[in-house]
């Protein structure tokens, strides 16, 4: 068990099946393969909600990968495929929700919160800068 070769064999024995998640051959066209990889890594598996369908071995994830693969190979665009998915499963299926009226709050909330925090901080700094220096601070400066 000490030799690295044996360890590697054990590792592959345990993890090999994970690498073989798609039994099928990869898509021949590199552009389509890239789109397929991107989409499957961005679509939520609804059975196991914190996994993407690229990560999941659930039967539904398998079916959705097959469906996406067929659409990609048929030359459909990323937007078409996303519409196909959200028409059936809702916006929740996308890990990166598209910009729309319903998702605007989701996208804007972080920016608004940062701006609110910055304004608050700025006001405190402004107020404190006008305050007289306390004797302790004066002592510290003199020292």
């Amino acid at each position, binding site marked *: 068990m000490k030799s690295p070769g044996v360890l590697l064999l054990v590792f592959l024995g345990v993890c090999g099946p994970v690498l073989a998640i798609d039994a099928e051959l990869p898509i021949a066209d590199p552009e389509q393969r890239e789109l397929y990889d991107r989409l499957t890594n961005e679509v939520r598996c*609804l*059975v196991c909600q914190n996994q993407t369908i690229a990560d999941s071995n659930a*039967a539904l994830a398998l079916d959705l990968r097959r469906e996406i693969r067929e659409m990609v190979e048929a030359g459909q665009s990323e937007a078409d495929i996303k519409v196909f998915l959200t028409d*059936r499963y809702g916006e*929740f299926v996308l890990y990166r929700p598209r910009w729309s009226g319903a998702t605007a709050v989701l996208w804007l909330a972080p920016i608004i919160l940062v701006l609110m925090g910055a304004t608050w901080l700025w006001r405190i700094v402004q107020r404190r800068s006008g305050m007289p220096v306390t004797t302790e601070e004066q002592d510290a400066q003199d020292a």
Partner: protein
Amino acid sequence: MLRYAAPIVIFGLMVVVFWLGLGRDPSVVPSPLVGKPAPAFSLPRLEAPDQQLTASERLGEVWLLNVWATWCGGCRQEHAALLAIAASGEVPIYGLNWKDDTLQARAWLQQLGNPYAATGVDADGRVAIDWGVYGAPETFLIGPDGKVLHKHIAPITWEIFARDFLPLIAAARGSGS
């Protein structure tokens, strides 16, 4: 006054938001299909594979589509409720046998009783994807205009049926005829 009240108000709002959030079941994803036309399908019937079950032949009537499979524990749990709904004569139930073994599915209906007017076999799960199915059992209510009126995820009970489905069925029949 404001500098003391503000933190309390913000804290109170957060409690409300988180409390509501905790009460929600994240495994129940609202279906975008409700209010839209039911996806078309044509599937071989479980009991007679040479015949087809189609969504379009149901036009003009109110019906339920119940997604089930023998590998699904919740389906066994809700089976008695489905039998009761079928026996009540309120609405016909059609089955969608999802990614299942056909022989086992037939044996299941023989053993437990068959609440379905007919069952379509969706062996490769394509129709289920069109319907946005992600976990059996799921039950859809389809109106006479072919639109999906309601979707229930998880095992159905008579109480759920009476509360959520019956009023919609009555309304659909009232406006449809």
